[in-house]
């Protein structure tokens, strides 16, 4: 039988406010354990929570950016479970009246665009962190009470790749809003996945498992791939899927059963009597909506319009907000009408440099001015694209300007026909077979010979002139 996976994601985003969700403690990452705590976030008897207004504002910002309906009447609930990292043994969260409902995230697939619905967005507080030492467990309460936003998708994702794209697009939107570090390693972005499979054509959802301990987007994709295989395999041999929570083991690339629904906890949700329900005025939502920064989709359209970029190129450039701003800056400062030259350099060599170094474009620390100086060398035919790539790497490594590197290494391209002719003659002599091949109609042979001349000139030959010269010379020969 042919099965189809159905996936829904729950994303937790830590909101970057100065103080915690319900008290005045600092949210700075990496402080000495238990140094950023107070009676409120430690859940001491008698202490009371007070909602941090900037947490709510940031949450509304996210909700609006995801196209959600921000609810006029909302409240906090207590979610109960006993664990030492949860000092009150309940978490302040939102249950039946969340902040916002019915949003969406658009993703791009090979088959085209797809809209993934966002079911709800709600506010909650984070728990602390257990540290398991030798024969004992310690609790760090610094993270306790950190402001979290939970973003729950509808089960609209039908493959691990779709889930991966959804996460990337969601993260992109969040980074534009500048409300979170979105750093999975620091735990400021976390994701749980609900996955079930059903026979193709069937409408009813299958029994789901909830995957936890997903520490990267790759882990989300890999664990889903594993889980689909496991579930389909089980169904194939007539086993029943049970509803359970499964932990992803990144090293072994497997999921393990953590607890089944039979042992599922009853969280005993009820409205938190310490935090009265509150009304969010439409005017406030509207104000936040109006102040929303340009979002990736809008920026993409604008880059296409302003700089004549293709949808694909613009799509790549807008992914990260800072990179998009950098790219835009470069293109704006580029004097020519046609920006393709800049876009190609950004999306091609520069992006691969960034990928090699596991950083963003801005992480390369290359100023727009220096990049444009390099492009000017290419535009004026002083260096080839090939040389430009080499210079680029050097610029990033040494922080030197293009002009300095080109001068030091004497890289200005040879456009002078007489000196190129010398090399051409040498190459023709040394590569008799290729010359014959070309004459016999093998066009490829020309490129080989061009390559040989390039080698001799250490890549400095002007490729256009070289090709012309070589073609003429071979015709004569």
């Amino acid at each position, binding site marked *: 039988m042919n099965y189809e996976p159905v996936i829904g994601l729950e994303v937790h985003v830590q909101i970057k406010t100065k103080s915690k969700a319900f008290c005045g403690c600092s949210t700075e990452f990496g402080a000495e354990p238990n140094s950023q705590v107070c009676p409120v976030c430690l859940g001491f*008897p008698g202490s009371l929570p007070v909602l941090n207004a900037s947490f709510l504002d940031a949450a509304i910002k996210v909700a609006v950016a995801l196209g959600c309906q921000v609810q006029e009447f909302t409240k906090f609930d207590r979610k109960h479970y006993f664990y030492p990292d949860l000092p009150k043994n309940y978490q302040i969260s939102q249950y039946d009246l969340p902040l916002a409902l019915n949003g969406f995230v658009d993703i791009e697939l090979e088959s085209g665009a797809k809209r993934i619905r966002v079911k709800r967005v709600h506010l909650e507080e984070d728990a602390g962190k257990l540290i398991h030492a030798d024969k004992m467990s310690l609790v760090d309460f610094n993270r306790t009470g950190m402001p979290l936003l939970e973003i729950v998708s509808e089960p609209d994702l039908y493959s691990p790749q779709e889930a991966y794209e959804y996460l990337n697009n969601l993260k992109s939107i969040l980074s534009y809003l500048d409300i979170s570090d979105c750093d999975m390693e620091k735990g400021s972005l976390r994701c749980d996945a609900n996955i079930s499979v059903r026979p193709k054509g069937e409408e009813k959802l299958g029994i789901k498992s909830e995957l936890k301990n997903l520490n990267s987007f790759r882990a989300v994709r890999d664990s889903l791939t594993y889980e689909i295989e496991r579930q389909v395999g089980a169904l194939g041999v007539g086993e029943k899927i049970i509803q359970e929570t499964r932990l992803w083991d990144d090293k072994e690339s497997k999921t393990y059963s953590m607890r089944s629904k039979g042992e599922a906890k009853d969280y005993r949700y009820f409205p938190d009597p*310490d935090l009265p329900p509150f009304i969010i005025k439409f005017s406030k939502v509207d104000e936040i909506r109006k102040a929303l920064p340009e979002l990736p989709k809008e920026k993409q359209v604008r880059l296409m319009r302003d700089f004549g970029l293709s949808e694909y190129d613009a799509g790549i450039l807008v992914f990260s907000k800072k990179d998009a701003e950098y790219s835009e800056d470069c293109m704006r400062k580029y004097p020519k009408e046609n920006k393709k030259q800049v876009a190609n350099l950004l999306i091609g060599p520069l992006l691969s440099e960034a990928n090699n170094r596991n950083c963003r474009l801005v992480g390369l620390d290359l100023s727009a001015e220096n990049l444009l100086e390099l492009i000017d060398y290419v535009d004026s035919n002083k260096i080839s694209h090939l040389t430009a790539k080499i210079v680029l790497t050097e610029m990033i490594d040494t922080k030197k300007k293009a002009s300095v590197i080109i001068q030091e290494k004497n890289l200005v391209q040879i456009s002078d026909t007489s000196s190129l002719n010398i090399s051409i003659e040498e190459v023709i002599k040394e590569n008799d077979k290729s010359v014959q091949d070309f004459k016999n109609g093998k066009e490829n042979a020309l490129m080989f010979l061009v390559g040989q001349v390039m080698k001799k000139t250490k890549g400095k030959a002007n490729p256009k002139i070289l090709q012309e010269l070589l073609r003429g010379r071979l015709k004569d020969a």
Partner: protein
Amino acid sequence: MSCQKLYKFSAHQLREKLNSREIKSEDILLSLSERIRETESKVKAYVRLNGQNLKFSSQTPAKTDGLLNGIPISIKDNICTEGMPTECCSKILQGFNPPYDATVIRKLKEAGALILETKLNMDEFAFGSSTENSFFGVTHNPWNLACVPGGSSGGSAAAVAADEAIAALGSDTGGSIRQPASFCGVVGLKPTYGRVSRYGLIAFASSLDQIGPLTKDVRDCALVMNVISGYDPMDSTSVNMAVPDYTASLGKDIRGMKFAIPKEYFVEGMDPEIKNIFSEALEQIKKLGATYQEVSLPNTKYAVPVYYIVATAEASSNLSRFDGVQYGLRIGDRGQVAGDRGQSAENRLIDMYNKTRGEGFGEEAKRRIILGTFSLSHGYYDAYYLRALKVRTLIKNDFDAVFKDFDAILAPVSPTAAFKIGEKASDPLKMYLSDIYTISANLAGIPAISVPGGFTKGKLPVGLQILAKPFAEEVIFQVASAYEQATPWYNEEPKL
């Protein structure tokens, strides 16, 4: 100066003596210490006293204009005091020294009050109406040592009645200030929900709890309210409204005022003596030029069940933090709680929770945690908690309707006077029913006071309850003061 028996005086009288430099604050402390030494072994209003000299919070920069400058105030054991034990009279909070003051304590200190380190006895976590549920043992009613002082603020009421405290703070979730005030013949006010900050009050039922004064007279009650009332940014449920000078309401006549008497309160189980005393009180009110009329609060019959669903649900949640991890009692292994999918470690953790909570909580606390956990459980929530919230709204609406036409409601505080120690201890349901006249005010969030209203033939005090609409404490003080001035009960003293 202690020959003057300063402990007998009210806070406002002592303020006058201090103002005229007739006495010094130390004289009051000495006199109070002496009194406690004399009578505490009979009353047992305080906990952790250990026969030592009384200790007070050091007076933060003495403000000579502070409303309570130099006046010692005694505090119920569930209100946090920085560096002074606060244990809710529960074993599970043994040794808990809060690192912070409750907002009311901060305000008292700022007004120059001296906070007694030894705290007042109470039912564990305020669960009870007799102070018999205290880990430290029962407090005795100063009017009859064989009787309970009421509860849960039994220690507060008994201490004020026995002159072992000049004034005290208690907390009221379902009558825990008014009922002991009635049983002990003192003044006790439950303010409007949101009038006094709950920050630092160890929560029983967050939507019902209010801190309030227990005092020797109405003026002291108004004086303490002037100090502790007001908006607190640390408490999201406190209300941002200006605080009037409550003492300005004292001494005004009540001619022409209209009072309502809820007919549903005169039900089976009400002691005929209580009924008589209440009727006499009404006669007195009439003499003062006011009128009264019977009204209906039709949903009164639901108040007790609604209260015990809402209060226990919130309590079960609020008390989940007492787990042995951070503070108070811990019984069990110190060890790794959860390693790599380690079941045995997980079991050790649960074992620690079970032992700590099993031994730390008393019977009544366990009963209420179980009741509350049940009504919040999946599948029961809608039938119990949600329904109770809806009926709670109906109860509130009943009061709103009455206050459209009346200035205040007059009612008894409790169906009986103080009962014998042990009389109801084994029957929780009977004990719950004794809250019948007080819990509605908590459910509706309205202010209510108990002022001395007479005595039974057995010489036990009985209170008169005055209830008003939200934030109408001024009306309550006006009526209470007029009634107090017209009656002799205030002059009576227990013989100890």
